[in-house]
């Protein structure tokens, strides 16, 4: 039998709607459509909840129409409507959830609220074929080292303050880099021509990391040394990436050693960064293991991952009642009972 889910995501500045089909005879997962529209702000600024929600409201219907058209399905083919329950920014989450609720009533289809992080993990596993990897989840809002055990994705390490993507985004603002397509992408490009390594704080505590001290330190250096020409913005981007990615690779390796795993799956927006992937491959290669990473279609927030993770839960009998379909800004990865895995 074929199951079809539509997924709506808008927990940060990307609005995404995707449609996925699971075939429970062949086990095949088919991506029918994956449409995204991003709220991009001028250089030097970040995205604010209110404006982001307005962006999502403005674009959600055309994105929905595109997703349905591209999938070449009719409404009656859809089994379930999935939406991001959290974590994320309140207003953008709510602006998309209300669309999901409306569709549920309008089309008379069940709802499934999905944890955004679980969406990333399940999509990453599906796309790459990684079986039981240590997951490094790195984005603008999250930094976690995760591994599955006994029906939950357990958090082995995480940031003790800001997320790695947030650190990169905020530093991009300091340098006035463009937010198009994303601040992190532009830092990555600038880092390629960095020549001098500037020592920055390096903060690893067990499997946890911390970025706020590094950010304030590099902001200070930028202020003191850029104008005088002691260093270039490229040097700073290079040094920042080298330092914080080394921290991520180190904690991931520690988790691998701790649980005896040889696979690493990188998910989340920062996971697109090729330098991070390269460093991870060097580490994992030495351990005789394998790195799994996805490209920007799946690394960056999207609707497909919500549809896919939601459908996995739905097929084990899980639904979210209308009155429980509220959003929550804080929703830990390890709160979700993973009924679809052994």
């Amino acid at each position, binding site marked *: 039998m074929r199951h079809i889910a539509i997924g709506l995501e808008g927990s940060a500045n990307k609005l995404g709607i995707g449609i996925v089909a699971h075939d429970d005879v062949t086990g095949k997962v088919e991506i029918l459509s994956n449409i995204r529209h991003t709220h991009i702000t001028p250089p030097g600024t*970040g995205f604010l909840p209110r404006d982001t929600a307005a962006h999502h409201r403005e674009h959600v219907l055309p994105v929905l129409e595109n997703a349905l058209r591209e999938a070449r399905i009719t409404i009656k083919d859809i089994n379930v409507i999935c939406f991001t329950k959290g974590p994320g920014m309140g207003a953008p989450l709510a602006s998309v959830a209300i669309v999901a609720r409306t569709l549920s009533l309008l089309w008379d289809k069940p709802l499934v609220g999905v944890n955004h992080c679980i969406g990333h993990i399940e999509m990453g596993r599906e796309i790459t074929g990684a079986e039981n990897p240590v997951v490094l989840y790195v984005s603008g809002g999250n930094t976690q080292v995760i591994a599955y055990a006994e029906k939950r994705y357990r958090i082995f390490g995480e940031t003790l303050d800001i997320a790695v993507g947030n650190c990169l985004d905020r530093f991009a603002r300091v340098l006035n880099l463009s937010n198009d397509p994303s601040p992190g992408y532009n830092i990555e490009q600038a880092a390629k021509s960095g020549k001098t390594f500037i020592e920055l704080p390096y903060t690893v505590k067990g499997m946890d990391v911390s970025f706020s001290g590094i950010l304030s330190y590099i902001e200070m250096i930028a202020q003191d040394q850029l104008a005088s020409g002691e260093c270039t913005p490229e040097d700073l981007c290079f040094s920042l990436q080298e330092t914080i990615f*080394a921290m991520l690779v180190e904690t991931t390796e520690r988790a691998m*050693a701790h649980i005896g795993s040889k696979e690493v799956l990188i998910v989340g927006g920062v996971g697109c960064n090729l330098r991070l992937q390269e460093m991870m491959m060097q580490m994992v290669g030495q351990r005789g293991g394998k790195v799994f990473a996805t490209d920007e279609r799946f690394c960056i927030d999207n609707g497909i991952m919500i549809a896919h993770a939601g459908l996995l839960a739905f097929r084990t009998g899980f639904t979210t009642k209308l009155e429980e379909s509220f959003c929550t*800004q804080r929703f830990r990865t390890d709160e979700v009972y993973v009924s679809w895995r052994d």
Partner: protein
Amino acid sequence: MIDNGVLIKQGAEARIYIAPFLTRKAIVKERFSKSYRHPILDKKLTARRVTQEARCLYKCRRSGLDTPVVYFVDTENSTIYMEYVEGKTVKDILQEQSDDDEETSRLKNEEIANNIGIALANMHAADVIHGDLTTSNLLCRDLTGSLVVIDFGLSYVSILPEDKAVDLYVLERTFTSTHPNSETMFAPILEIYTKKYKDSGPVISKLEEVRLRGRKRSMVG
């Protein structure tokens, strides 16, 4: 490579050998460079960690904590020679418990929790932050049953309750992530810790804060 050494563990950042050292049996921890790291960063980190590990091991030992005795620090080769401790990790002990009946494992856990609590109290009283408290880094000495804290590779000295709280938080999460069945062990550890460490008050309230920070972190940047 350590001559006369038998490699017993290829860790993430160090190779561990057993080797004879001046009439004794020693654990030799040789840190190696990580090719994914920028060479400047790599050199700095390796040197810093060798130094801090040796100093913190010694500081703890002086403060009455059972830690391996440091025999020799070879900074040229990023290698520390230390006492070989015959014992089992708490991780292994907890994971092997499925063979025991309920009462036996309850008593065992109680004793282990008690020993861990006392050890952490002593360590933090000496202002040493371990930096990587996991059940793999706690040993029970075969001969005396004493709890030995090992692997000070990420340790440092700090008087801040925040740092001590994060230390405890790291251990708490090991229990939830690695030993979901022994999750309840952390509470008695904390109880003994609070009792034995006279300045534990601010640490415990910070721990509350650190936990909340973890669970309630917002995505908003």
